């Protein structure tokens, strides 16, 4: 995104420097003509950007400062009252901490496992095509479906995972253990599912990165007698920097904004001991009917994501070439 305006500015400069001012005016006119000719083609995109991105975001900011009744009536301004309500909510602090735990654990585990998986899929072996296909499956399946399969597998009395744990002697209660009935274990299982569904995208991004690692450097290292571990750390990983940092960035945003897994896993638990910011926004809307609070919390979430991403981009510079 960043590079686009720069490029066009560069073109402008080149144009204006070249030749007389008459030619420059002519070029200027042509650009206008080009723009007018292009308008019909880009208008739908502009409308989309405004209607789908800018307008809802603006409405969210606006709603966060209004008092909105359960039936959706706007009852006037709230100033920053909605924000005050949210900060005064005793579970707000724990929810924010939990959101960070959620994002960090899911992203770190996903990337570590994906690195190993990508390495495996990079190696040639019989049936590699099938294994590569198998890794895509969780991606193709609906997240809610995947989560529900795990959720019901973990049900006490008839869940298939519980049955397995009982048969293996890990659990001794014949009714099974209520994994999804307690906030702590339900949250951990939600993390496991989130890692599982994030693997395909991350693995394939890293796999694509692996294809670009130059074979020359690897062979040179081998010639110099470096051990595989050393080659991986010093030669392969640095060249994967671009792929990994992009994968992390997209995962951070995705995982932060993820609702369905936590909602499915922790929905039956009373109270707010397994909620993240996203599920809390959902509870404000669905359960409490407070669109205004939900909007205010959305704004807070928006700002948090913005800060996190800005920090990340600044420190890691994922766009930078190696």
């Amino acid at each position, binding site marked *: 995104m960043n590079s686009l305006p720069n490029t066009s500015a560069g073109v402008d400069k080149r144009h204006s420097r070249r030749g007389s001012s008459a030619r420059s005016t002519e070029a200027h006119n042509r650009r206008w003509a080009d723009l007018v000719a292009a308008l019909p083609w880009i208008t739908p995109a502009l409308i989309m950007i405004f209607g789908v991105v800018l307008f809802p975001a603006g409405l969210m900011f606006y*709603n966060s400062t209004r008092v909105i009744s359960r039936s959706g009536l706007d009852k006037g301004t709230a100033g920053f009252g909605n924000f005050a309500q949210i900060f005064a909510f005793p579970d707000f602090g724990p929810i924010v901490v939990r959101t960070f735990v959620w994002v960090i654990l899911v992203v770190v585990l996903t990337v570590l496992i994906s690195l190993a998986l990508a390495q495996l899929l990079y190696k040639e072996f019989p049936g590699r095509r099938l294994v590569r296909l198998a890794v895509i499956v969780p991606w193709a399946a609906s997240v809610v479906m995947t989560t529900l399969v795990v959720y019901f597998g973990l049900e006490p009395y008839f869940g298939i995972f519980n049955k397995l744990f009982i048969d293996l002697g890990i659990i001794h209660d014949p009714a099974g253990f209520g994994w999804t009935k307690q906030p702590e274990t339900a949250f951990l299982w939600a993390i496991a599912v989130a890692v599982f569904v994030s693997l395909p995208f991350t693995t394939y991004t890293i796999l694509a990165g692996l294809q670009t690692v130059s074979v020359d450097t690897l062979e040179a290292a081998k010639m110099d007698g470096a051990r595989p571990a050393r080659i991986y750390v010093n030669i392969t990983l640095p060249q994967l920097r671009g792929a990994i940092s992009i994968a992390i960035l997209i995962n951070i945003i995705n995982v932060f904004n993820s609702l369905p897994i936590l909602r499915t896993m922790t929905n039956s638990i009373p109270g707010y001991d397994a909620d993240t910011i996203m599920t809390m926004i959902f509870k404000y809307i669905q*359960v409490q009917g407070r669109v205004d609070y939900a909007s205010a919390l959305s704004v807070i979430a928006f700002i948090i994501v913005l800060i996190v991403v800005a920090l990340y981009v600044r420190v890691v510079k994922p766009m930078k070439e190696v």
Partner: protein
Amino acid sequence: MKQTLRIGAAAFSVVAALAFSGCASGPSSNAGSGSTSLNLLVPTYDDKTKGLWQDVITGFEAKNPTIKVNLEVQSWDAIDGVMKTKIQGNQAPDIFNGGPFASYATDDLIYKAEEIASPGTFADFQESFIKNEQLNGTTYALPLIASARALFVNNTLLKQAGVAAAPKTWDELLDAAKKITSLGNGIKGYGMPLGSEETQGEAAIWLWGGGGTFGNETTLKIDDPSNLVGAEQMKKMIDAGVTEENPGSMNRSTLTDVFIQGKIGMQVLLPPIVGQIKEKNPALDYSIVPIPTKDGAPLTLGVADRLMAFKNKGDKQSAITKFMDYFYQADVYTAWVKAEGFLPTTKSGSVALSSLPELKPFLDVLPSARFYPTTNAKWAAADAAFKSLFGKIQTDPAAQVLTSVQKQAMAG
């Protein structure tokens, strides 16, 4: 979403106001002199619904040749939207089978119940159900079908545990549940589903069973000393370990399957479960008994859907009355209710259906049915607050839980 809601609500109120003040002039729906047509809008309860109404209409039109009934069937998901559109378009159905009626009543869109049923028909309804159709003391709708709850008891487990008779009071219930739980092998005495699926149902049974209340159409009363009795008893059950593990987050439909599998001694359930047991585990030896309460006084949680009649131009009142009188005759009505598998709301219907063994236990408790205060404007928020917070009673003090539910309901 929010925007459309708001616009929708505004448009709705404008149109409703127009319709009420009679400014709009729609085309006449009467087809010539002497004959009237009635528009009947109903939701589908199942695949049989449309055919059953068709039968009723055929029978009615044969007896009343001058009245024609137009049937429109909609899904439960769609019917609210359809009603909104129809009312906005000044095309409200003459007779509507619906859920909440309070907003129609306050907007003066519907007839009072006595205006659309002859005294004989009106007097035949169970008093508890008529009370549920009232707003500020006026009855606005005729209860159509009912659902009630009763205690399902696993006879095999009770026998094994040496419990002679099904419990009638809380003390007996706790005692029986303890004995059943001590059978071990994952078997628990009492199923208490307080997960978010339908927390308010189990809560109502316990809180009301201890003499509590949720309030009425004007006041919401959840954080009330009278409710503390039942809440404390729930904690007593949970702390004694006679319920399933983690009752606070166990959903009703899941736990019902566990009961059907024969691993729960007793659970409060609904009439359709009889059919489910027949289908999933016909070997289960169970009986259906009244719900135990603190002192053994009869109580059940009732849910009812209703028929209401819209005034529109006000010229079809007698035709509507004829239809209602025809429909609520014992033979026509019970045929309909029986085929749908619900409970009747009329006294004559109860008598006619009491010979059915699977309905008998529910019919017996119907007169003592109590209902949620659905006409209270805060009830929707209270319902949601129960679902999201009441399960905390598993770990938190009862009084604190009641306070938090009330607080969230009032804020909603």
